[in-house]
């Protein structure tokens, strides 16, 4: 991993308004528990404003592709609540493994894993990411 990403790399994650994954203004460690790896987007030398715009684009594209019945009847539940980030220093401290995972329309996509072989983070790792995550942008959620 050390060879792939620079020490000042940052990883961004979108958080929807539903389900509510924040408590008292901070993210729950539940955000970082994913059996497919924690889905993030790499800063990749971009300006933060560019990253935010790209996250908003990806969110809209995801919704446009969403075929669920609930999205059609309750679109407000799918609003963006926040964009949060964790940095490389924290990932290194927690000995996390970052797997580059380019997908169509998003060359910056990556997955955070416990190790190269094990996907799900430990409770300690997930909690440390939640405690130290930076809330980059909070959106006004219209109910």
């Amino acid at each position: 991993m050390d060879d792939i990403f620079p020490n000042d790399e940052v990883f961004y994650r979108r958080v929807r308004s539903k389900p509510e994954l924040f408590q008292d203004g901070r993210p729950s460690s539940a955000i970082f528990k994913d059996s497919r790896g924690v889905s993030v987007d790499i800063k990749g030398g971009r300006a933060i404003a560019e990253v935010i715009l790209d996250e908003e684009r990806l969110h809209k594209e995801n919704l446009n592709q969403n075929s669920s019945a609930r999205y059609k009847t309750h679109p407000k539940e799918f609003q963006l609540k926040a964009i949060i980030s964790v940095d490389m220093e924290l990932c290194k401290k927690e000995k996390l493994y970052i797997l580059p995972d380019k997908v169509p329309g998003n060359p910056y996509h990556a997955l955070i894993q416990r190790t190269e072989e094990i996907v799900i983070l430990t409770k300690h790792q997930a909690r440390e990411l939640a405690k130290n995550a930076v809330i980059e942008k909070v959106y006004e959620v219209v109910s």
Partner: protein
Amino acid sequence: MYFNQTVNPIFATRSDSLDGMIGNLSDILGIFRNFIVREVTPGMEKCINVTSSPYNRDNIFVQEYEPAIIMFGDEIEKLTRSSAKAICKLHEIERLEEDWNENGAQPFGRELITLCKKIVMEMPVAPSVFPTACGSIQFEFTNEEKDYLEFEIFSDHTEIYFDCQGVEREENFQHRNNFIQHLRQVVVDFYG
């Protein structure tokens, strides 16, 4: 009579799920009214003015926590504002569809949701409730010392995690007889 006339509109659309409850409606509503009154305390802003029209559908409390009020039925005296919030969160989690986290997360089965509701009802302090994309539901507790207790609940076991004054500990607990009482005791001990 006052209760029947005033309250029926709240439950009218839910009569199918309330068959066993209608017979005791007056008693239940009496308890419900006491509960509402009990909850109108300083700091609980959303309950302010609830007593002026506690059973009206326009009532903020009833609107916000209706799934919990319906679910608790004749056990409504156990319902607190925070447990109502937890039950409603589980109701929200139950409605999540495939890919709810934009990374292919799966929806939750009713069995796990029902189990979590039972656990909430037995807790001395209501947890904050969150879904994970590992097929589990996470309960979080924080005490006055900012210590942290977490239950990660799966259908067949619960993983318990403590972070007390920086000292971490984990336990893995299979769901056998009386396991909910065990979880309850963990919370009791946590809050001392």
